[in-house]
């Protein structure tokens, strides 16, 4: 216990000494550091902070030091994150390498793959994108058609992926391809890593309701990829894919915190637009809605903490994890609808004068919240999973 207390103090001191003041403010979409070959820093402080974190392995604190991490235990990692949050330190970089494919390589990769990819992710040199969904397939991920045909030591990839976020700005892709078209749909899939600069790769942005274009449709026309780039076993890629989906769900439920770049909460909006009278929000109906949201939000945060505590005590159960994405994204939608009601016109600005940057961002945050309960497994899919895997409710006959 006292070791961890010391550890906490050390982290706190280091952050205090090393995290520039300007890196302790809410980050905007534009200032987010995504890493990659085209890495640019919006400010000198951002570069300084990034470099210092990379040096200590703090972009991936729980990865082994040999792969660029800090080698922290689960408990240490949690303390690290708590201290980062306490000082409002920005994440030094955020991307799918750190969240998804890195952990997957740690778990399924060969030693060679680990040495090749992990340090680059830890140092933000390579930016990854994800090639899972296909046009028209939606929630039925495993029904994928993008094919990889064997050609000596290589595969030849043909097909297309959709919802590949920032594919047009990414360096590498981890991609599900069908290597055995005759196998049942969950078999015959391979989890493949390849360079987006390969010949035959083309990424075309899709505009969302938020006006943003981080997603692409990505086309593969006879793309040649070495077979050794498969992560895990050929035709057994679904196992890796499922694990990555778990990482994704956990990440999605964290999304709110990082996505809420306007920094507005129902409480802050209510204090600004409704005001306090005798220390109470002047509108009791909105006041109750704000409380409801705060309690739900706290319940969600505490559920994550409880899971960790349960695992620590050996009474853990993965079924609790399955609620996080559903609850997190659904509550996020309610949160923004509530803010819209409270802030009225100021939360519905689109551009131009009359609205602060934070207000214009708020409108996007509201719209972005609609995407989160769809991406990474819709809420309906989450409910199916809970009903069947956790509650053990039966499948309909013939399905």
């Amino acid at each position, binding site marked *: 216990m006292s070791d961890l207390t010391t550890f906490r103090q050390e982290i706190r001191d280091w952050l205090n000494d090393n995290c520039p003041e300007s890196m302790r403010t809410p980050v905007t979409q534009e200032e987010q550091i995504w890493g990659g070959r085209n890495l640019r820093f919006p400010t000198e402080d951002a570069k300084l902070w990034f470099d210092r974190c990379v040096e200590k392995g703090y972009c991936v604190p729980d990865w082994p030091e040999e792969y660029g991490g800090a080698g922290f235990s689960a408990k240490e990692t949690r303390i690290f994150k708590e201290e980062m949050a306490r000082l409002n330190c920005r994440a030094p970089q955020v991307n799918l390498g750190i969240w998804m494919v890195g952990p997957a390589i740690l778990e399924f990769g060969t030693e060679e793959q680990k040495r090749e990819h992990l340090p680059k992710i830890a140092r933000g040199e390579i930016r990854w994108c994800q090639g899972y*969904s296909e046009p028209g397939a*939606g*929630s*039925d991920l495993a*029904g994928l058609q993008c094919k990889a045909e064997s050609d000596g030591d290589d595969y030849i990839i043909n097909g297309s992926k*959709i*919802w590949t976020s920032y594919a047009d700005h990414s360096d590498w892709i981890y991609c599900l391809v069908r290597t055995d078209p005759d196998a049942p749909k969950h078999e015959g899939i391979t989890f493949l890593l390849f360079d987006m600069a390969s010949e035959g790769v083309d990424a075309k942005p*899709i*505009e*969302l*309701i938020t*006006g943003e274009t981080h997603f692409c449709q990505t086309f593969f026309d006879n793309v040649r990829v070495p077979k050794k780039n498969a992560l895990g076993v050929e035709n057994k890629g679904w196992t890796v894919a499922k694990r990555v989906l778990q990482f994704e769900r956990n990440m999605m439920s964290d999304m709110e915190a990082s996505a809420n770049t306007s920094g507005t909460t129902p409480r802050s909006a209510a204090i600004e*637009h409704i005001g306090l009278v005798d220390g109470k929000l002047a509108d009791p*109906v*909105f006041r109750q809605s704000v409380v409801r949201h705060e309690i739900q939000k706290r319940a969600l945060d505490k559920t994550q903490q409880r899971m960790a505590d349960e695992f620590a005590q050996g009474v853990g159960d993965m079924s609790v994890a399955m609620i996080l994405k559903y609850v997190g994204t659904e509550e996020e*939608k309610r949160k923004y*609808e509530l803010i*819209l*009601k409270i*802030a*009225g*016109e*100021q939360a*519905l*600005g*689109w*551009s*131009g*004068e*009359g*609205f602060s940057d934070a207000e214009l961002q708020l*409108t996007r945050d509201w*719209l972005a919240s*609609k*995407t989160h*309960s*769809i*991406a990474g497994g*819709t*809420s*309906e899919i989450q*409910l199916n999973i809970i009903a069947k895997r956790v509650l053990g409710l039966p499948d309909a006959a013939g*399905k």
Partner: protein
Amino acid sequence: MSLVFNEEQRSLKDTARGFVQANSPVESLRKLRDSQDSVGFSRDVWGQMVELGWGGIIFPEAYGGFDFGVKGLAACMEEFGRTLLPSPLLSSVALSGSVILQAGNETQKQELLSSIASGELLVSLALEEGVRHNPVAISTTAVRNEGGYTISGSKTLVMDAHVADQLIVVARTAGQPGDHDGISLFLVDAGAKGVMISKTHLADSRNYARVTFDKVAVSDSALLGEAGQGFAPLDRALDVARICLAAELFGGVQEAFERTVEYLKERKQFGVLIGTFQGLQHRCAHMYTEIQLCKSLMMDALSALEAGKEKAPALISAAKAKISETAELVTNEAVQLHGGIGVTDELEIGFFMKRARVAQLLLGDAHFHYDRYARLEGF
């Protein structure tokens, strides 16, 4: 007091439906948005609408109108909502026209209404001062001086102000913000000295502006109705616009719902039509019930208004509140049930959601109208 549109109204509604489907599908709004059109609606389409009589639809014949009543207009608004038609019909006719009808003297009505009906004149109401609808929270002042008034203050959410010829300004000649008494209505030339209009861009890509009045001088003849007694006619006019806006919103809700149900009948996942999933079926069935309830409340409010019932204002609040809540439910579900393509800009369903949120807010959201209903009901 029938809760159904009569034959004349149904025929008007059919005309409206045919008109917008031919002349202003949702795609038109997208084009106006993408080209950052400075007018924000099609003057051509508006010209045709005026020609077909919509400009004078609710005005008495004596003022160049067709006297089809609010019920007739609402029937059309429902159809206009289905294609998200942008036009000055709500701002200039339903809202400003109603204020003139309710508060104006005979001369003002004669002069203004037929010009509005003919489309020559566009009038906007400068009412709101806060982030949400509140017709008594008026700080803008109109100070009496010799032969007229001097108006100072700031307004927001003024529909179509950037193209208006005249503005009706809600200003205070007495009392404090929050008082019913002391509210007065003034006609102000949009180009008058001291008037500054700046267009704002909201999520629904429709037309709103902020307007500031810096010591704007108007003559006595600019006063609509009695000084200090403007709230009552204003509120009656607002009620006309509220139920018309509710009808427009309701049209959009129905369109979004129907598109969603159709999608469920086409889209396959895991090898089956997603419309076969009971979880989705039940959600759609529930939405259908809410939509039917909205329709009944809308017809209830329109019938009470037409019959001049004392309960009409409360029923208009009931309809606007319920339709606003249903709009939130249905547009959110429409996006969610469309899945990935639901959140692309390419699919039109997002346009319905964006318009719905602004229309929910305008002229009072559910929160405002629940309160107003209780107040009018005496509890």
